[in-house]
Each structure stands twice: as C-alpha cells, then as structure tokens.
C-alpha cells in the first residue's frame, strides 16, 4: 500500500502516507499511524524506497519518501501476485455460492 501510494502521489512524508491510506481504506483499516514508520524502515532496508529531507506544505522539516526502481519492480510483481490470488479466491467463493 505504501509503495502504491508513493507511486501514485510521488514523494511524500510519513504523515501524508498515513493520511492517504486512512482516506482510501474508508475506516476499514484502523491502524495506529505509527506503524507506517515500521513499514517505511523495512521498505528502506530492502531498498524499495529512498528518503531525503524536505520541507512540508506547512513549512515543516520532514522526511520525504519516494519509490526506487527496485521498489517499482517489486510493486509490479506484488500487484500481479495479489490480483492472481484475489482472482482465484474470487472464483472459489463464486463456486461455493452457486453450490
């Protein structure tokens, strides 16, 4: 989700990412916003995202995260994988409904 958000919106700080995910999930996912940072660190360690200091829209010093080339590749792979699994599960559930 973080990768996709960064890919769609460009470089973003942690607060922006948390906000965006919260908006999109429409209260289905209620996570503590702090957990975003754990994911960000993990993604950074895998070199899927990179970060640099910048200034936020309300003039605060903030760390902006952006997707790297490796991250984009990973995103494509993960998306395909998710879609495949979701499609399979969808088919299985549809079968059960008919039966």
């Amino acid at each position: 989700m973080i990768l996709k958000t960064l890919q769609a919106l460009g470089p973003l700080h942690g607060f922006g990412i948390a906000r965006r995910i919260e908006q999109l999930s429409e209260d289905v996912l209620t996570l503590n916003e702090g957990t975003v940072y754990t994911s960000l660190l993990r993604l950074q360690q895998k070199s899927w995202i990179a970060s640099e200091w910048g200034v936020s829209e309300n003039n605060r010093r903030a760390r902006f995260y952006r997707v790297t080339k490796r991250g984009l590749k990973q995103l494509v792979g993960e998306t395909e994988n998710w879609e495949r699994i979701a499609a399979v599960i969808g088919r299985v559930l549809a079968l059960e409904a008919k039966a």
Partner: protein
Amino acid sequence: VGQRRAESVFDEEVTTHLEMLAEEYVREGMSAQEAVRAARRQFGNTTLLKQRQRESRTTMFFGVRQLLKTPVFTIVCVLTLALGVGANTAVFSVMHAVLIKMLPVEDASHVFYVHTTDYPAGASQTGDSNTSFSYPVYRALREQAGLQEVMTFIPLSTSGKAPARVGTVPEEAAGDMVSGNYFRGLGVGTELGRGFVEKDEDDHTPVVVISANFWATHYARSRTCSERRSISSRFRSPSWALPRGDSKAPKESCRWTSGFPCRAGPSSMRGGIRQRMACI
C-alpha cells in the same frame, strides 16, 4: 554514533507527525490539549515503535559492527576464507588437468609415455634420459608386433620453440618434429589437407602441420593459401593439415613439422639425437 543519529532522526519524524496530526484535529474543532492527546492515541505507542525500529536496525548492522569492532579477527577470517577457496581452486585445477582431463585424442586412456630405467650414465645427450630413445631403438621397437603405433616426437629446440616466418614477419613458434605415424597414432584428424604419413618420414619431406589456432591467426582460415613458410631457416610447404577443430588440437603446440627425422638423419643419429616416445 549511527544508531544515535538514526534515533534522533526518527524522534524528529515522530514529533513532526504528531504535530501535524494535532493541527489537523485542532482544525476539526478540538482544543489544543485534546488534539495532542488524540494525536498520541492515534499514532500509537511511540516507545514500542522506537524499540522496534532499534531492533530492526540492530539486526541489520549487528554483524557488520561486530566485524568492525574486531578488525584483526575479521582480516584473519577473510584471509583464511580467501586462501582456503583459492588453494582449493588451484589444487582442483591441477588435479583436473593431471588426473581428470584427458588428452584431446581419439582414445586417451590408451596413450602412454614409454619409459626406460637404468639408463647408462652419460648415454643421454638430449631430453630426459628415461623417456628418450635413439632412433635405431625406436625403429627396432616399431618392428615388434603390436608396437607399430609407437610414435616419437622431438622438440624443435630445448625451449620447444623455433624461429618461424610466414611471409616477411619472423617470429617464434612452438612445435615438435614428429614421426610419420604421429597423427594416425593419436587418432587426430585434420580440418584441411592431410596429416603426416610414413612416406614423409622416410623421404624427410619438409612439410608442416599447423594448429587451427595458427591457421586462424596467420592465414585467416584461408582454404586456398599456399604461401610457403620457413621454420629453422628451412623452407617447408604447409601441407595444410590441421587438427579437426580446436578441441582435438593439443593447445600447447602451435604446429608439428615432419620431414622427420630431417635433422636427426643418419649422421645426427650417431650424435645421439633421441626421440621421445609415446605408445598407443
């Protein structure tokens, strides 16, 4: 130092996040104090988060830090591994070349060096005494039943190389003078032309067989070239007999010459020029 810096960066990030979140709550109508509390609630346990971040970083850099802390141990480990791997590779390369890899000839398991023991002292004048034989001995051996394929070779010089010239450029090339049955005995065919035959040996024909490599570098693999070449200042026509493909050609030797024993003729025989023998 890195750990502390990372933690202070994370602290700053968290503080900014909490401030931004609180501001948003204030905009939504909360009081400042309430907003700060709500932001903290929404953000979650910062201590736990910090702990997780620290653990994550620690795991990542733990190994590296431990190695950097003890440089002597690290160097010893790296060198031991490097030498171990290197030595193993070297030993295997030698073993592969000596024990496993077969000669690129037809039936490598039936090729032997002919040795002799108790060679009379001083009787040998060239080459290794225990693998060198005089020409009459060689001829006599070949008369024996089942030993028709005993073949011989003599290096062109002590270094195995001789001056050679193709066209106008003089150079040095490795080669052997070999008996007429050399190629037939080894079962090595030729890409073009012919290998040596018995008649070459009997007539001392000045012909040369060049390796596929030499053919490519000096004749551009031309199939029609008839340029004469000079080896040891004697002109020889290339017989254009080349080993069939690189894999079959002994890589070390650039060419073989026949006309054998051109320099080891009857007069030289008395001088004691000897042939090394291989037997199939």
